[in-house]
């Protein structure tokens, strides 16, 4: 460990000879990408765990200043590779509100359908990877199989399986046919019983429950103070969802609940709550998808936008409810054809800040469960 990082450790942490410093990551199997934790442990018990981020910093915000407004869309896919559609969505929302573009209603519906499919896919990885971290490898592979169906649908919609680049300023790139709508219905018919099967396999498994319940409890006050967003915040029992509070796109036309943690198996705000909120959100997404597919109107999929978009001096903030919580972009334009400044706010970055507070007194195995339940994605932290 370099000398410069030692100073962040507590002074008393190194005073006792019994404590040892464990360097977890960036090549550790369950840090979900390249993340580093400096863990001060006494045997298995953690005294302090310091997240060390920045291994995946690629300067995406700076790249935005050098590409055109349209040309930046493919870059937004790379912010969060598991939920690329939300980054697409928030970026085009920001540009549209700056350029004052009206989006056709059909395009809005297509955006919602794509986003909700992506939310399911992202939560599948999140919950499956948590089970994998706990030691059960089968649930993860079962979820990967379901995600593969979603990927096939996504491939039919926009041509890519991971980096979608589906949204455009003023609409979406491609229309969906009746065949794809039928395919999504078929997938949902197949998928909804599988959720219950998955619950029988792992969610209600007593060993799994005991590994997560009453572990790494984040109180509602802490959750707000540390700026947690999305399922992590809702896991602590706070009803906060951008889709309901600041309805963007056509989310105000759908009827859906916001699942919050209630201490399902242990106490409020533990790892199991954060895990199970995601499972419930998958079910909610399924119902939103069914509603959106049944109400989808006819019309254009893209508003008329100039090929070389120039936006007069202005600034705006747009946010969506991503799979990892509020994802916001603060966009400043200066009259040229490229953004003057872009600031991206992501959920995983704020989630890392609470690791140090919550991890005291946990065991090494619990830290893995905590990281898994926070659903951090390394490129989203560092951007």
């Amino acid at each position, binding site marked *: 460990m370099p000398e410069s990082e030692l100073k962040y450790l507590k002074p008393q942490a190194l005073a006792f000879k019994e404590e040892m410093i464990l360097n977890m990551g960036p090549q550790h*199997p369950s840090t979900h990408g390249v993340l580093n934790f400096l863990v001060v442990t006494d*045997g298995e018990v953690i005294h302090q765990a310091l997240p060390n981020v920045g291994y995946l910093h690629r300067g995406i915000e700076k790249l935005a200043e050098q590409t055109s407004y349209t040309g930046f869309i493919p870059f937004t896919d790379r912010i969060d590779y598991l939920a690329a559609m939300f980054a697409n969505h928030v970026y085009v929302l920001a540009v549209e509100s700056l350029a004052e573009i009206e989006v056709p209603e059909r395009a809005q519906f297509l955006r919602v359908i794509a986003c909700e499919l992506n939310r399911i896919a992202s939560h599948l990885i999140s919950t499956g990877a948590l089970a994998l971290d706990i*030691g059960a490898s089968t649930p993860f*592979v079962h979820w990967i199989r379901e995600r593969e169906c979603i990927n096939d649908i996504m491939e039919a919609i926009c041509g890519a399986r991971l980096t979608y680049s589906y949204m455009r300023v003023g609409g979406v790139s491609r229309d969906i046919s009746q065949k794809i709508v039928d395919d999504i219905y078929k997938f949902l*018919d197949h998928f909804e019983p599988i959720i219950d*099967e998955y619950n029988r396999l792992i969610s209600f498994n007593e*060993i799994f429950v*005991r*590994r997560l319940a009453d572990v790494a409890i984040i109180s509602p006050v802490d959750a707000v103070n540390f700026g947690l967003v999305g399922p992590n915040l809702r896991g602590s029992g706070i009803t906060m969802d951008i889709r309901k509070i600041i309805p963007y796109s056509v989310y105000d036309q759908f009827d859906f609940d916001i699942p919050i943690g209630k201490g399902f198996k242990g106490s409020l705000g533990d790892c199991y709550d954060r895990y199970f909120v995601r499972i419930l959100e998958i079910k909610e997404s399924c119902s939103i998808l069914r509603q959106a597919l049944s109400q989808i109107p006819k019309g254009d999929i893209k508003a008329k936008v100039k090929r070389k978009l120039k936006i007069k001096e202005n600034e705006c903030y747009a946010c969506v409810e991503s799979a990892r919580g509020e994802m916001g972009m603060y966009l400043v334009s200066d009259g040229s054809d490229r953004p003057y400044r872009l600031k991206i706010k992501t959920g995983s970055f704020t989630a890392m800040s609470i690791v140090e507070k919550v991890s005291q007194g946990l065991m090494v195995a619990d830290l*893995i469960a905590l990281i898994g339940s926070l659903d951090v994605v390394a490129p989203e932290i560092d951007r």
Partner: protein
Amino acid sequence: MKENANLLFVFLFKTPIEGSGYSLAWYILFVFIIAGALLFFAANFAGITSFIERRIAARIQTRVGPNVVGPQGILQWVADGIKLLLKEDLIPDRADQFLFRVAPYFVFSGLFAAFVALPFGYGIVAADLNVGVYYIFAITSLVVVGIIMGGWSSNSKWALFGALRSAAQIISYEIPTALSLIPVIMLTGSLSTQDIIKAQGGLPWDWFVFHSPFTFVCFVVFFISALAEGNRIPFDLPEAESELVSGYNTEYSGFRFLVFPMAEWANLWVIAAMVSLTYLGGWQVPFVSIETLSGSLVLIFLSVAVFVIKTSIVVFIVMQLRWTLPRVRVDQMTQLCWTYLVPFCLVAIVGTMIWMLIFPWETRVALLLRLMMFGIGFAFCFFYVRRIRFNYFNDKTAYENLKKKSPWYPIWRLP
């Protein structure tokens, strides 16, 4: 074994061994032959099981599994072994060189020595020790010495974690393992593996597992603690790959690494054989008494087949548990041992004593009770099959609509 050696000598050289003057040399040679045969069995079983486990795990995870090397991938384990043999034998800088080299030998010899007392059929056992059962559990504890050595000498914090977890685990689980065998020993009156099997019968209700509710509890406890002794999920804490990178064998490579997984898979046989011989009737063939069994060579081979089938079923269940369950935490592992398994065992021992006094084995009431226990077990299996059917039909029509294919693809249908 001495009689068998004598018989073989007579068969080969047509003279009795006593007068030949080669008796000592022949006995030593015979020991080596038996050791070689056991080693051959253990190594091959470990290899083939690794392949079969991967195939079963693949099907559980809706995959196909290794099927490229050889017909249906049957030679995959040979390829893996050769690959590891050809790798560099790496010893980390600042590692304790001597202990690092020696540790795999401890792991290997601890496991292999257990095969000496394990029976394979009627009269087919390398050494019918009169303390057989406890010999096996004493000698397999040598494995943990090797694991601690390997973890300590690697000069890696992850390996050290794995080693210390392993120590805690073995110390805890030796106790329920031993306690849960006491009812069997009380029922048999002997520690010899052959005597334990002889005391049971061929039909399911003559097995010790269905003797009373108490022995059934002990069977479950024994199964769980045998899993823990064998470092299988849900107790694979020493090499928890998502927590400790790879646990005690993080720093090993090449053939020294190969010894650890090989020992783990060979241990699978030891666990399964112990479970099947103590509680599931061992090599007892249904409707054949021991007197007729000893007379016929065909029946002896049949007994071997029965034992192998029973053991294979237990091996399969252990494998399936591994691919179903998550891993417990360290404190939960010890908590499970001391607050659940040990008290249950103690109660069950006392219960079995009282049961034995009230319902002696030969009486008609005892047989009726055993039949009832067997009925409960059968109902449990029936319910299990119903649940499997439910899970299958739960998804059937939706799957057919989605993929336009029938989901029926049983495990014996090879892709």
